[in-house]
């Protein structure tokens, strides 16, 4: 008990499992416990959404930018006055169209992948890349690609993520490595920090993964091939990074994502583990009781009981949560100080009254599996945005911001057609196209 907060590795698993407990606290929650820590985190307070709320947020961000673009476009047309022809107006109406929310999302996803690739190229640690990915995607929840060109934020984001993860690289050497410039990197650093709501600490699923691996190895001691486990661990770490590219991060806690990734990697093993950990005691004994030969068996049993209590709580609270729509409310901070006895809470926690019943245990495991499967599905549903698609969207974004270029392009085309009518000699003409310019950078 006393070692709990002194040893991070011991606390790791406890923390992971405890934060599986749902997101809502009962009103009479008075004490700070470990599972409470995640709920106090900025990641939970600011960056967890229901599916509906996330969508609303994206629509809102998109709409704000669309209005701006349309106003700019109207201003441009007004300024042209009589100088603008009917066909030019027509072209503007069809070409200079703001992006939809879906198009924005695709472009963001495409560039997030770039962030990942560049991070790898720069040989950054996994956690730094993870934070870069997270920052980049969060930025574009708050801001539109129509206002901030994603290309201009890639390096800024990675640079800030390095600093946030205590992996400092001087801006000059970073610029050199990333083939960028200091000004480019620092231009939007403040803006980025502001849009991140000044929250810089991320809880990535790599830590819970480590905790679960230790626990699986302990609980299935002698039943698992360590070499296999090592390989599986590395694969899971890679899959976690992929999961960070999806919306699962906004709807699920890091340990939930970890379990989804684990199950995706080895469903049989992980299901068996979860059965042992969360299943009915009878079931456990029947199925695996004779297999467990570990000195830590008693401990594991005890831990299992504790975990069960927490999951019960989770199921209860899940119910509460599903009743409310929208962002999970920030619970009131009911944290209270007790005279010198702050550390006594664990024992009291265990005494907390939890109804017991075998049926409920089954429901809890079912419920947990349901969550994990939903998370797994969400991770799997991520579709890759092709370069072709990204280019088209990028061009569209370009045209809607620069109506003058659309007009220029049209004029050239018309001139070209006239020339072609007049003299057949000229074959090709240079076209003003953003795509040509951007070919190398998109």
């Amino acid at each position, binding site marked *: 008990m*006393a*070692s*709990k*907060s*002194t040893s*991070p*590795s011991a*606390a790791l698993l406890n923390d992971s499992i405890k934060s599986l407990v749902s997101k809502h606290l009962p009103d009479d929650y008075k004490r*700070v416990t*470990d599972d409470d*820590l995640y709920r*106090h*985190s*900025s990641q939970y307070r600011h960056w967890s959404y229901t599916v509906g709320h996330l969508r609303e947020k994206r629509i809102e961000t998109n709409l704000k930018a669309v209005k701006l673009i349309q106003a700019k476009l109207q201003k441009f047309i007004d300024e042209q006055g009589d100088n603008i022809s009917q066909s030019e107006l027509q072209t503007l109406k069809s070409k200079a169209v703001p992006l939809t929310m879906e198009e924005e999302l695709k472009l963001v996803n495409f560039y997030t992948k770039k962030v990942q690739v560049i991070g790898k190229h720069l040989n950054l640690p996994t956690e730094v890349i993870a934070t870069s990915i997270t920052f980049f995607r969060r930025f574009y929840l708050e801001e539109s690609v129509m206002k901030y060109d994603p290309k201009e934020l890639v390096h800024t984001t990675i*640079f*800030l993520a390095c*600093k*946030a993860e*205590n992996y*400092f690289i*001087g*801006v000059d050497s970073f610029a050199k490595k990333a083939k960028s410039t200091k000004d480019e*990197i*620092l231009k939007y*650093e*403040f803006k980025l*920090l*502001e849009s991140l709501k*000044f*929250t*810089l*600490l991320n809880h990535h699923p790599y830590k819970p993964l480590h905790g679960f691996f230790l626990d699986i190895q302990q609980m299935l001691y002698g039943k698992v091939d360590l070499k296999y486990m090592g390989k599986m661990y590395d694969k899971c770490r890679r899959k976690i990074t992929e999961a960070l590219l999806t919306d699962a991060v906004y709807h699920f806690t890091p340990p939930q994502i970890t379990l989804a990734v684990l199950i995706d990697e080895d469903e049989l093993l992980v299901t068996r583990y979860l059965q042992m950990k969360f299943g009915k005691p009878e079931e456990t004994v029947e199925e695996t009781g004779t297999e467990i030969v570990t000195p830590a068996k008693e401990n594991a049993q005890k831990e299992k009981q504790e975990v069960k209590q927490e999951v019960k709580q989770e199921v209860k609270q899940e119910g509460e949560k599903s009743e409310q729509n929208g962002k999970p409310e920030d619970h009131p*901070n009911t*944290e209270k*100080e007790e005279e*010198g006895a*702050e*550390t006594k809470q664990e024992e009291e926690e265990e005494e907390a009254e939890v109804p017991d019943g075998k049926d409920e245990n089954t429901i809890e495991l079912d419920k947990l599996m349901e969550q994990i499967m939903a998370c797994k599905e969400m991770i799997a549903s991520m579709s890759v945005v092709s370069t072709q698609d990204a280019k088209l969207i990028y061009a569209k974004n370009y045209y809607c911001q620069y109506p003058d270029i659309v007009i220029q392009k049209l004029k050239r085309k018309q001139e070209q057609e006239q020339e072609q009518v007049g003299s057949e000699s000229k074959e090709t003409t240079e076209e003003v196209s953003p795509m040509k310019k951007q070919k190398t950078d998109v």
Partner: protein
Amino acid sequence: MRESYSKENKVGEGTYAVVYLGTRQSDSKKIAIKEIKTSEFKDGLDMSAIREVKYLQELEHPNVIRLMDIFMAYNNLNLVLEFLPSDLEVVIKDKSVLFTQADIKSWLLMTLRGVHHCHRNFVLHRDLKPNNLLISPEGIIKVADFGLARAVPNPREILTSNVVTRWYRAPELLFGAKHYTYAVDVWSVGVIFAEMLLRVPYLPGKDDVDQMEVTFRALGTPTEKDWPSVSMFPSYNKLQIYPPPSRDELRNRFIAVSSSALNLMCGMLEMNPGNRWSTVQCLESAYFKELPSPSNPADINISSS
């Protein structure tokens, strides 16, 4: 709605920021604004500022300085902090202020709670000293200045030992250890505890070499027996070996201090970081359970009479 603040007189200048007094317009509440100068830093946002923002956003506790808001103005980052008019250094130094054993107990308890909250959130402060323990108008101690803080490292991570203001630096840091953890903060609190009792700095080394000398003269040079492989540190050979102080010697140095207070202090000033007490052990110490009970913070008089 966005809060607005007025910036009034400048109260201090830190290493990377200027601190102003201010008022929150909505309710006339006094606040402090820490303005981080950015243009001066060629690497963009300064690391200290990033650390401070990063950790203060996560650590909400009565004994940790509260970050109330952050805003940008004229390309400067401004941290709106609760107004904390005093700090423990000022109080300890002001010889016209008299304080009791119960007051010290209260301050130590609040400090340990604040540090414990950091540790339970896997954050190391790495710069605990009386000057960074600010005091609210209600007498509450608040751990402040997270410019050197970091997450608890993975076992294999290499860290810099160049942290913590010299007098409060744990022996493993003096040895230049590349791996260390929570215990460095506990050591600092132990030295602060001693300083509160003595009312002068306990281990005031003149430079890094002298710091080892001062530390080990006062508390004994660690040996292989109580700290296996301590002699592997490069600087170990050059050390003068002092015996640890006897109980009587400690009692003579810290007069009128109970034996559980001495136990707690020795637990925090344990040479071997592996044996040093955790914040949990400290908080559960008999010292906090025996009389006198800690003073009510609001009743401690810290303004000079």
